[in-house]
């Protein structure tokens, strides 16, 4: 059966994921070493150790995301995170930075290494180089590949592939996007947060609900209309006499119907986005996808449209997997 890799932003969400049927849970420490460094989220060292014990007792694995890029002069924070994840019994760490991968491979040779989507490794040569140089065992593929391209990658590598099947959708090459940095001065890739909440402001106005990032108006939604996340890539902008979503419509990824094709393409694991979401989201999405991967294993048809309410913009897309870029 394909492995279901599920998000947990808090210990309660980790327990919810395991109880809902996650094979594996991924989470991060409460600092800028992981790419979901939001207020009130993530794990202390004690919570991580307890969470790993909870998961292991129930046959589930825990991966620790340390997937931001260490800042010069501050590498110790990232090195400590790797050491503490290993000491807590993590089944793998998810890394993006080549310096950190080299450090982990050298100092923690028994620790399984996964390559984060933040590394944006999107072809077999790049993936095989990470395997040869650092012993990377699995790569999380960027959300810019078609199913055919994923199959082509799997034909040319022994590294396991993991792909996103649900949740927030980055349209940019992850790990290289600087849109949020331009508006806020904080980098998703180094500080661990895209559209940091400290720079987001909402206001009800006569024209509708307005969202600003770093003082820039990025969208205005009419009362009762679906509201997107306050990210620049989902912003609605006016240029000349045209107003629209320049980069991407505010929709979420839902690749449920592509699970059989992804399985056939050689994908090992399916990843659900959403460490910033609640335990209610985790329970509903994990339960639905556990049923879907079991159905795929039996050759049954895929269920569809069960999770629309949980999606950004209340709408879903299969993203680049079935590429129809405009």
């Amino acid at each position, binding site marked *: 059966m394909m492995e279901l890799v599920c998000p947990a932003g808090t210990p309660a969400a980790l327990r919810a994921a395991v109880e809902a049927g996650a094979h594996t849970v991924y989470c991060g420490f409460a600092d800028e070493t992981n790419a979901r460094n939001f207020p*009130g989220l993530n794990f202390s060292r004690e919570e991580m150790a307890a969470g790993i014990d909870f998961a292991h007792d129930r046959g589930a694995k825990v991966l620790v995301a340390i997937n931001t890029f260490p800042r010069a002069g501050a590498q110790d924070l990232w090195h400590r995170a790797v050491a503490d994840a290993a000491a807590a019994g993590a089944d793998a760490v998810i890394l993006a930075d080549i310096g950190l991968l080299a450090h982990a491979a050298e100092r923690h040779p028994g620790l399984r290494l996964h390559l984060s989507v933040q590394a944006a490794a999107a072809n077999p040569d790049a993936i095989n180089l990470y395997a040869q140089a650092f012993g990377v065992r699995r790569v999380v593929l960027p959300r810019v590949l078609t199913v055919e391209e994923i199959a082509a990658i799997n034909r040319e590598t022994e590294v396991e592939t993991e792909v996103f099947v649900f949740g927030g959708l980055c349209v940019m090459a992850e790990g290289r996007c600087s849109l949020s940095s331009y508006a806020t001065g904080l980098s998703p890739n180094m500080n661990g947060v895209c559209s940091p909440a400290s720079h987001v402001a909402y206001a009800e106005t006569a024209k509708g609900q307005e969202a600003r990032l770093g003082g820039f108006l990025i969208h205005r939604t009419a009362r009762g209309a679906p509201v997107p996340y306050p990210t620049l890539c989902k912003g609605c902008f006016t240029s000349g006499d045209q107003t629209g979503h320049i980069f991407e419509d505010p929709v979420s990824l839902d690749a449920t119907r592509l699970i059989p094709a992804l399985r056939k393409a050689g994908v090992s694991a399916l990843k659900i986005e959403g460490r910033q979401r609640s335990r*209610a989201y985790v329970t509903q999405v994990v339960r639905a996808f556990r049923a879907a991967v079991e159905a795929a294993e039996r050759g049954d048809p895929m269920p569809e449209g069960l999770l629309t309410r949980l999606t950004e913009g209340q709408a879903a897309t299969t993203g680049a997997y079935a590429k129809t870029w405009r």
Partner: protein
Amino acid sequence: MPGRMTQPPMPALPLPLPLSPLAAVLSMLMRSTLRRHPAILGRMGAAAGARFLIDVTNVPVLLLIEPALRRARVLPRSARPAHDAAIRGRLSAFLSMLHGAEDGDALFFSGELTIGGDTAAVLALRNALDDAEIDLTEEIAGLAPAAGPMARRLSGLLERRTGLSLHRVTETEVRE
């Protein structure tokens, strides 16, 4: 943290209870809940010092909570209290989110909850409460253990009559 915000004036509605006793009970409930779930304040960090205006649109009062001070204040709708962050929505949305029946972001996407002011403080509060797995019925029962069985029976009755979420949902109760 951004500067003080003021709430636009709302029409005054008849109040079912005198405000001071209600505020005293809510403050007691808040202190008891924070005692039973000490991780909430730690998880909130600096955001615990913020003043949160809870605007439940279908009840006749406003609620101002200050977690670090362990204080809750009940105000008439005509009040314009200074606050750092505001969350607005129907009672059903707040209770469903608190009890893990509904996802906070989904309620936000659908416009059932709106927020204003310090977004980071709102996120910290939401995430800390979600992790705490609070059960409001049990928190109320914990105030007076001798009356606990009666509180649970009353809560169950109210839940069936109103459809509101009044207890923490289990994994099997989360809706499809």
